């Protein structure tokens, strides 16, 4: 089980999510730690790396018979 996040780590995670949802980060907040931009860059780099190398969609082996097999199991 992971340790609970500190208040600062939780704020950072919420800031990241805000950027993902709205498409921009609140970069002008006066209390924004400078390190957050660097950390966000690392998160973006990791995401780019994973998306370039892990498929989000892939047909299963025997995809032609897949749906029929499901229908037979439902009968």
């Amino acid at each position, binding site marked *: 089980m992971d340790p*609970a*996040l500190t208040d600062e780590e939780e704020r950072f995670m919420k800031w990241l999510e805000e950027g993902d949802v709205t498409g921009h980060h609140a970069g002008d907040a006066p209390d924004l730690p400078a390190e957050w931009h660097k950390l966000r860059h690392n998160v973006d780099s990791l995401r780019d790396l994973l998306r370039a190398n892990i*498929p989000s969609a892939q047909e299963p082996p025997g*995809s032609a018979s897949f749906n029929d097999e499901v229908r037979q*199991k439902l009968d």
Partner: protein
Amino acid sequence: MTRYRPRIYAMTLNLIRHEADARDIAQETFIRAWRAIGGFEGKACFFTWLYRITHNLCYDRHRARRFESEGEFDDSRGLPANALAANLPRATERPDDAMSRTELRKKISDAIDQLSPEHRAVILLKEIEGLSYGEIAEAVSCTIGTVMSRLFYARRRLQDLLREAAPNLKN
């Protein structure tokens, strides 16, 4: 079913790393979804609801496999990197580029293998599927606080594991 089949199969394969089991689980997901469709209230997005079924099935399968293979060779590991990358778009590459890309995919695959099932699920749902914290919490049946914590530590672990293979992942 045809619309969601490639996403559900890919996600299942990424999670449990075993082609035959992933195919079985993808089929079982659609069977359970069909039987439970009356209970889908439309509060969550359909894929999130579907994924919740997949996640529960993967979790059960993972527990069963761990129980079966305690002290034995675990054949759910070691899925070839090209099995995961089979459907990725490919540009024309020189042989040495193709080799380094294959090696990189193998390293990423190995790194994902080293994550706990909980970390693997949140990383894949966030970074590959692009779900929000709330949608992930819905899909894996936990709180948003737990999603943030798992994601925070999963990213840190992956960055540590992949730093050598991908130098742009800085400290």
